[in-house]
């Protein structure tokens, strides 16, 4: 440990002790306030190194989750949503979700899909390619700069958000559609082609880094599905081959693309266990630092598979769950404070807490019928019969900065 005295601040306590033994013990709100003490405190408090240490020490023992309710709409391009509303909900303790952060847009925003959470940052990908990132704990809400335009406004675009341990930075990455079309072959068959690019953006860095950077093209077209984000790597489902030109059979064979944040390259891996494709009813997510595949072979069952991060995934079947109501679309998973239990939401409205050890579950709440959203200003609503997706992400508090500063 060095014992030099602080030059910038004139404090008599050595900098490293002040920062990593004293400031890290302070509550988040206090630290937000202390950004105005002096410039070097602000730079320290906003650094990802400090924010990560603070998060480590104040490990989330909260049993809450964040909920992001969102109306369904058929037309994905229409800007039919007022904005983003993030609620805190304590499953099993209450039937009320309290508003934490809201951001409304005068002209509305396009529909967004399943949000992702990483160390307290929430990524909200909109259908047309607009991407929002927010930190409910610091109330920062940011629209990322526009990147490469999707060809013909491709719908349902996705993005990944994760930590790169090698650079110590948080990054967002997403595929974009450069071109797409169908051509006739000499034999009369049809061949579809598409060219997909890939771009990344670093958060909380200098202003010059606040733009998308095009990196290596993915070797196969990435699907419009939420990726799995683990430290250093993003995992995307991708289509290896389509057999639509035979006309009689439509089938595909899928692979998993692993994108390394460090060297910005893709590697190709075999698809998930038990089938060659990622069906519309299956979901990918991160669970306790592992890759998780929620496979639903029939409307009344899901099986949860886990794999360790690494060049060769060894998938293992974790548990099978018999659903209490049939799923129409898919079942989403979210970790809980207890590592043996996870939240499952059937079609993003029917919430279960499931025991990974034996597949047993308890029904927490029917979020459409019984959950009250409270804006803490006197307005309460229940989505009721309105078609809503009640998206959930883990509740984590951190100081991480999104915008450059």
């Amino acid at each position: 440990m060095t014992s030099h005295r602080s030059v910038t601040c004139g404090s008599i306590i050595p900098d490293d002790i002040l920062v990593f033994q004293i400031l890290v013990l302070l509550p988040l709100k206090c630290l937000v306030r202390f950004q105005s003490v002096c410039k070097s405190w602000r730079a320290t408090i906003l650094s990802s190194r400090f924010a990560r240490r603070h998060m480590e020490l104040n490990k989330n023992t909260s049993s809450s989750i964040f909920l992001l309710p969102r109306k369904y709409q058929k037309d994905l391009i229409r800007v039919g949503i007022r904005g983003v509303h993030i609620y805190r909900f304590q499953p099993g303790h209450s039937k009320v979700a309290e508003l934490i952060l809201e951001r409304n847009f005068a002209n509305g925003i396009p529909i967004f899909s399943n949000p992702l959470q990483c160390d307290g940052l929430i990524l909200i990908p909109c259908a047309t390619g607009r991407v929002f990132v927010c930190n409910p704990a610091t109330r920062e809400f940011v629209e990322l700069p526009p990147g490469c335009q999707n060809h013909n406004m491709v719908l349902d675009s996705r993005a990944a958000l994760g930590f790169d341990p090698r650079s110590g930075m948080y990054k967002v990455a997403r595929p974009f559609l450069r071109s797409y079309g169908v051509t006739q072959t000499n034999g009369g068959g049809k061949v579809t082609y598409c060219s997909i690019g890939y771009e990344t953006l670093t958060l909380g860095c200098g202003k010059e880094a606040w733009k998308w950077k095009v990196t290596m093209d993915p070797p196969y077209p990435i699907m419009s599905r939420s990726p799995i984000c683990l430290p250093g790597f993003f995992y995307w489902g991708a289509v290896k081959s389509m057999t639509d030109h035979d006309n009689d059979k439509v089938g595909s064979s899928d692979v998993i693309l692993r994108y390394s944040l460090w060297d910005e390259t893709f590697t190709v891996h075999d698809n998930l266990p038990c089938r060659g494709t990622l069906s519309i009813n299956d979901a990918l997510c991160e669970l306790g630092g592992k890759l998780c595949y929620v496979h639903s072979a029939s409307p009344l069952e899901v099986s949860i598979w886990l794999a360790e991060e690494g060049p060769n995934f060894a998938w293992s079947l974790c548990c099978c769950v018999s659903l209490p109501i049939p799923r129409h679309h898919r079942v989403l998973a979210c970790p809980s404070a207890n590592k043996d239990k996870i939240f499952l939401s059937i079609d993003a409205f029917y919430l279960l807490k499931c025991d990974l050890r034996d597949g047993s579950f308890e029904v927490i709440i029917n979020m459409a019928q019984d959950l009250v959203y409270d804006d803490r200003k006197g307005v309460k609503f229940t989505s009721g019969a309105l078609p809503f997706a009640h998206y959930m992400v883990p509740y984590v508090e951190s100081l991480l900065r999104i915008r450059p500063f």
Partner: protein
Amino acid sequence: MEVDKGKGEAEETRKVAEADRDTVTLKSSDGKLFEVSKEAAARLSTVLAGMIAGGSIDDNGTDLKQIGSEALENVVDYCNKHANSIPSAALISSSISFNTAPFKEPEEWERKFVDRLSHDALFDLVEAANFLGMERLLDVTCHKISEMMKGKSPDQIREVFNIKNDYTKEELEEIRQELAWAFYDD
């Protein structure tokens, strides 16, 4: 400075005593001498443990040039109190149950020990604990400082830590507005 201790004692007695003396003598930057339990010093300070094991403890007072007498008195006081407190049974059990916890809450006597110190004394003690590699004392003092900071305004913090406000009026206003919510208690 000359050492008072042992002066006038018979040479043999001193030599015999040396081998199993259960204290060591430390000398502050301003030349004051303090006696501390050898066992506690070795247990609580990695630096003193190293010196004791390496035989570099001076019986006439080991020079600790970086530490003033007020801070050293507190260090010694802490070590001696520690030696007398119900040793570590409580600490050991808490370190097991809170294995993953970042910081073990100070015990009652540790809390009292730091509560009576002034800001300056506390800050000096942090430096001394850091210098001597006294992890537990560093934790306890740092914890106390963080507790002390919690309710303070940025202005008060600058005063306590002697920090110059290097923001322009406009910059400060901008930050205040951006973070207005954090300036109100809810």
